[in-house]
């Protein structure tokens, strides 16, 4: 069995037809991880005991000939920002180095209830803050396609694990592009669902009005199957939407003829990477020529203001969310403090890395007396303008297609000393987070150096079906 290209549907079929047991498959993946992940560093920890117990119960069902759950035996990786009961969860931070959560993230629990086998927890930028996974306190991840390059971030471990064949699929989180950008850098599919589509209960909070959980996988169909399992209202997350969950997998193969694709000129600026531009333009042309889609030039005029808006809103929320790490109830506590306030400061000083401190500082500054109106409130107003851009666009088109990232994967170390240039790696992805619309990144070619390039499709709120239809139509046309 080729672990590198095994799909969700393929795994379930193989287990149903008794070509392989869930136990043997999980063992194969663990062997591959042990042999090859030392170099890539996509996993922070593996949870063998829990995985083998899940695999055994799938095998017991299969052995009795009982009906199998929809993800029976599918080996999966989980970004280490989602808590797992009894399994260390670090968020890529020293401050949570020994944290053993007492409960499970809803999305992970739903995967396991559907028969998935969670192999382990994947590396990521500390508290999901970064675009290269170089901000992990446990060392960076290398891109399986070129080990001198980053896998993107912050879900770099999840994207690399899928690309390298260390898991059939993975969960990541996306606050400014953290699922889609690494998916594009590693050559896999990455989906950020609509805000509220998937419960965030048990997701370690970074910026609550922007955080999303979503799948990374080998195909659009796999992403659709996985979203169907994790989506839906969860009473434990008051922001999870009470919106019916359609049969996403049934969208695969449905016609897209006559769908109108918007191509925003702001996402194809002069001077951009020519290979990225060509790959995205060719993909759009292919959908027009082979699948019968209409192409409509559009404008999203406030696009140049998305990154500044994002870095004010996200850091303001982060400064508040990360106030909980105080060394009292869990996480790192500094050993040498005489007073409570000294203990708070030292614990946070010792536990947080440079980028996390920078964002807490920027967010605190933007919320502080005298600056709130000029920065935080201003950004919230521009967020409304960005949303109106999309409302106007979706009056004319059914979907918007852009490149996912302005460049293919960059070199390790290339941007670490320049926070602003790192932030600009998210220039095409942050707006969907701010507006709350869903977006998917799909591989659409390679650069001359053999690096993957991804295109992004965005649709209306809760219109993931359009992403799946168009995404699959593209995969089919390009195959």
């Amino acid at each position, binding site marked *: 069995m080729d672990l590198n290209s095994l799909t969700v549907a393929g795994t379930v079929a193989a287990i149903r037809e008794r070509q392989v047991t869930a136990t043997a498959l999980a063992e194969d993946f663990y062997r591959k991880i042990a042999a090859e992940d030392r170099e890539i560093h996509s996993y922070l920890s593996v949870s063998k005991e829990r995985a083998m117990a899940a695999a055994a119960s799938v095998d017991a069902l299969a052995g009795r000939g009982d009906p199998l759950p929809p993800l029976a035996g599918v080996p999966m990786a989980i970004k280490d920002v989602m808590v797992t009961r009894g399994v260390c969860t670090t968020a890529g931070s020293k401050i949570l180095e020994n944290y053993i959560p007492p409960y499970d993230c809803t999305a992970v629990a739903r995967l396991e209830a559907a028969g998935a086998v969670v192999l382990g927890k994947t590396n990521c930028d500390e508290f999901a803050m970064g675009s290269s996974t170089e901000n992990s306190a446990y060392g960076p991840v290398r891109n399986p396609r070129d080990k001198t390059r980053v896998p993107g971030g912050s879900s770099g471990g999840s994207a690399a694990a899928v690309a390298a064949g260390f898991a059939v699929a993975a969960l990541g989180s996306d606050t400014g592009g953290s699922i889609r950008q690494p998916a594009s850098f590693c050559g896999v599919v990455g989906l950020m669902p609509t805000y509220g589509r998937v419960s965030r209960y048990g997701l370690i909070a970074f910026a609550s009005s922007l955080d999303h959980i979503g799948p990374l996988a080998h195909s659009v169909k796999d992403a659709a199957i996985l979203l169907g399992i994790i989506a839906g*209202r969860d009473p434990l997350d008051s*922001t999870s939407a009470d919106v019916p969950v359609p049969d996403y997998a049934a969208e695969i193969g449905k016609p897209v003829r006559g769908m109108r694709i918007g191509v925003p000129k702001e996402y194809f600026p002069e001077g951009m990477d020519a290979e990225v531009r060509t790959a995205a333009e060719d993909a759009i042309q292919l959908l027009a020529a082979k699948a019968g889609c209409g192409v409509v030039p559009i404008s999203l005029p406030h696009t140049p203001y998305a990154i*500044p808006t994002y870095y004010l809103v996200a850091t303001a929320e982060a400064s508040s969310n990360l106030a909980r790490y105080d060394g009292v109830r869990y*996480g790192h506590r500094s050993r040498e403090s005489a*007073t409570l306030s000294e203990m708070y400061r030292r614990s946070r000083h010792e536990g947080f890395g440079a980028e996390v401190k920078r964002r807490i500082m*920027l967010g*605190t500054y933007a919320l502080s007396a005298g600056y709130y109106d000029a920065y935080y409130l201003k950004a*919230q107003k521009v967020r409304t303008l960005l949303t109106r851009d999309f409302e106007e666009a979706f009056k004319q088109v059914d979907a918007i297609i852009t490149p996912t990232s302005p460049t293919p994967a960059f070199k390790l170390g290339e941007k670490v000393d320049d926070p*602003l240039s790192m932030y600009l790696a998210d220039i095409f992805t942050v707006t969907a987070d701010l507006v709350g619309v869903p977006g998917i990144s799909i591989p659409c070619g390679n650069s001359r150096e053999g690096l993957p390039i991804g295109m992004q499709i965005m649709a209306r709120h809760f219109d993931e079906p359009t992403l799946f239809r168009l995404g699959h139509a593209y995969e089919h046309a390009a195959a």
Partner: protein
Amino acid sequence: MKVTEKDVLYVADLADLELTPEERTRMARDLNSILEYVDRLNELDTTGVPPMACPELVEGAQVSDRYGVPEKKGTARFEYAMRADALGKSLDHKVALENAPESDGTFFQVPKVIER
């Protein structure tokens, strides 16, 4: 330079962060470079534009109605977020203390709060 090292100290104090002298210098430099960049938001006239705290909470936001999503404005779509104020199951006391850096088995323990 908008942000001085003195400002950095003040903000670090608000955020309960200790910074080394080197970190302070670097932080002032980084914050200035980022703030200079975000200043481009002032090119936009936002008079009369309502602030948006969260997707779909903005007045007049349009949501697809093709998949059974009710078209409502303002906060009404989040009515379902309300629940009965009833006593439910909560984390077991012992479990809640398991990750505590210091505990006496009943309470979390911390260093001295009041200095004399």
